[in-house]
C-alpha cells in the first residue's frame, strides 16, 4: 500500500503508470455504471410488471430503496474516512469522508424525493410527519450541515478533525432512519424487507406490497439495488475524491506561488 502522499507532489506522479491504470479503471467503471443505470431503469420501467394496487408509481420503489442503500454505503465511507483520518492524519481519508457525504447526500435526497412522489397518490399527501420521514429528513439535514460547517472552519487541520468526528457521529441518523420503521408501531411507512415489531397488528403501514405478487419485481429490485448500492456510489465517490485531490493540489500550488 502506498504511504501518505502530499497533495502537491501528486502532480509529479500524474504521468506514472499507477495513476493511469486507476484512471482507466475509473472510466471503465463509469461507462459500466451509466449502462447499468440505464438498463436498471429499463428493467424497472418496462420489464417488471405493474402493481395492481398502486399502479405505475410502485416502480419508484426501484429507485427509492436502492438510493437509500447507496446513500448508506457512501455514508459508511464517511465513517471509515473519519476514523482512518483520526488515526493516521492522512488527508486522503478526509477526501474519502467528504466525498461520501456529498454523494450520500445526493442519493439521500433522491430517496426522499422518490418517496414523496410515491406518497402523493398512495397516502394522498406529499409529506406527513411520519417517524420514518422525519428521521430521513433529519439525516439529510445533518449531512447538509456537515458541508456547511466544514466550509466555515478556516484552519484545514481543525476542519478535518471536526469533520471526521462529525461524520462518524452523523451516521447514527442513518441507523435511526433504517431502524425506526421496525420499532415504531405508529409509522405508516411500508416495510418491504426485513423484520418488524413482532406484533404485526401494531404496524399501521400503508402502501405495502408483496414482492412476489407482480412478476419481475424481485429482479428489478435486485438489479437496481446492486447498481445503486455498489456501482453508483463507488463511481461518484471516486470521481469526487479525484476532485478533492485536485482541490488540494491547487491549494498547495497557490501557497507555493504566494510564498514565491
Amino acid at each position: 500500500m502506498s504511504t501518505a502522499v502530499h497533495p502537491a507532489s501528486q502532480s509529479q506522479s500524474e504521468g506514472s503508470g499507477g495513476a493511469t491504470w486507476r484512471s482507466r479503471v475509473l472510466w471503465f467503471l463509469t461507462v459500466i455504471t451509466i449502462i447499468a443505470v440505464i438498463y436498471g431503469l429499463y428493467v424497472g420501467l418496462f420489464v417488471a410488471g405493474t402493481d395492481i394496487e398502486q399502479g405505475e408509481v410502485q416502480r419508484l420503489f426501484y429507485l427509492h430503496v436502492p438510493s437509500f442503500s447507496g446513500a448508506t454505503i457512501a455514508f459508511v465511507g464517511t465513517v471509515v474516512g473519519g476514523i482512518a483520518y483520526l488515526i493516521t492524519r492522512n488527508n486522503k481519508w478526509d477526501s474519502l469522508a467528504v466525498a461520501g457525504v456529498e454523494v450520500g447526500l445526493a442519493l439521500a435526497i433522491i430517496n426522499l424525493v422518490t418517496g414523496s412522489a410515491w406518497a402523493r397518490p398512495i397516502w394522498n399527501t406529499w409529506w406527513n410527519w411520519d417517524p420514518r420521514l422525519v428521521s430521513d429528513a433529519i439525516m439529510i439535514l445533518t449531512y447538509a450541515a456537515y458541508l456547511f460547517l466544514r466550509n466555515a472552519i478556516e484552519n484545514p487541520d481543525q476542519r478535518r478533525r471536526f469533520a471526521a468526528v462529525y461524520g462518524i457521529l452523523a451516521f447514527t441518523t442513518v441507523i435511526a432512519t433504517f431502524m425506526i420503521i421496525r420499532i415504531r408501531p405508529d409509522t405508516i411507512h411500508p416495510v418491504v424487507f426485513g423484520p418488524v415489531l413482532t406484533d404485526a397488528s401494531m404496524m399501521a403501514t400503508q402502501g405495502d406490497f408483496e414482492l412476489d405478487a407482480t412478476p419481475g419485481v424481485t429482479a428489478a429490485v435486485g438489479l437496481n439495488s446492486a447498481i445503486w448500492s455498489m456501482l453508483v456510489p463507488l463511481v461518484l465517490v471516486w470521481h469526487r475524491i479525484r476532485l478533492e485531490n485536485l482541490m488540494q493540489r491547487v491549494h498547495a500550488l497557490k501557497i507555493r506561488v504566494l510564498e514565491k
Partner: protein
Amino acid sequence: MRILNLKNLIPLTLALIFAFPFALAAQEATDEPTAEATSEAAAPTVSELSIFDDFYNHASGWHVRIPEGWTDESTAEYARFTREGDAITVLHATATEANAAIDAALAVALPNVDLGDPALTNVVNLLNGEWTQHLFTNTSAGNVAVYAQVFENVSYAVVSVSEDSLPVIIAAENTEADTLTNTLQIAAALYDPTIGAQAVDVTTLNTTPVYTVSTYENEAGETVTSLSRARTATLYVVTGATTDVDALFQDSVLFSMLSDFFITPQTAFYLYLGVGLSFAILLILIASMYVRYRNLRQDEASLRELENE
C-alpha cells in the same frame, strides 16, 4: 497466466458481480405468471398487470375477488361466477353515468330480459366508493341486484342473479337497535312483502364480523330468513325462503366481492415526476463536480504559469 493478473482480475470480478443480477432479471422477466383457473371450461384471462390467484384481473385494470365455491366462467371481457343457478357478472362499460351503466350491464348479463322497474334504487357508500344499487325482485330471471360505480369516466357494474335469495345493502337512519331492526325488516320485505312486521326469531352468530339471523313468517306460514350484518348504520342483508343459513352465507359473497373490488389507479404521472427529479438531482451533482473540476483545472494552469515566471 496473463489472464489472471490484477489488471484483468478486477474488471472480470466486476463483470461477474454485474452479470448476476442481469441473469436474475432475465429469468424473472421470462417467467410466465401463474394463474389457477377454477374452471377448465373458460379460464379467466390473467392480465399482464398482476397475479392475484384469487382475483379476476381485467386487462383494463379492474379487479374482483373470485368467490370461493363458485364456478369461474369469466372471459376476457367480463367476470362471471355461477353457483346452483345463481350468477354474478362483473363488467365495465364506457357509460359515464350509473343508470346507463346498469342498463349496459343488464344487456350483457341478462340479454332480452325485461325486468321492469326496480323495487329499490339507492346509493350505498362502501369503503371503495359510492355504488348505485338497483333491485329487481321476482322477475322472470329471478331476483336481480345490480350495483354500478363510475370512476374517471368509466363505469363498473356488478350484476347478481339469484333464484332463491335477494341481497340488499340499505342504510338505516341511525345505529339504534330499533332503527336497525326496522330497516332490516324493510330489506327482508323486499324479498317477500308478506312477511310479518316482527321477526319470529333473532340469533346473533358468533362470527367475525358479527352476523345476525332473523327468521320471519310470511302469509303462507313459510319461513323467510335474513342473514344480516351491520357496519355502522349500513345493513348488508341476504334474504331467502330457506332455513339454510350456509346457503345464505354463500349468497352473501356478493358483498365481499363489492367491497374487495378495486381499480388499479393511474399513477404514471408521479412515476415520471419521481424519476425525472431523481436524475435531475444526479445530473446536478455531476454537473457541479464537472464545473468545479473545470474551474480548478483553469486555476491550476494559471498558477503553474505564475510559478514558472
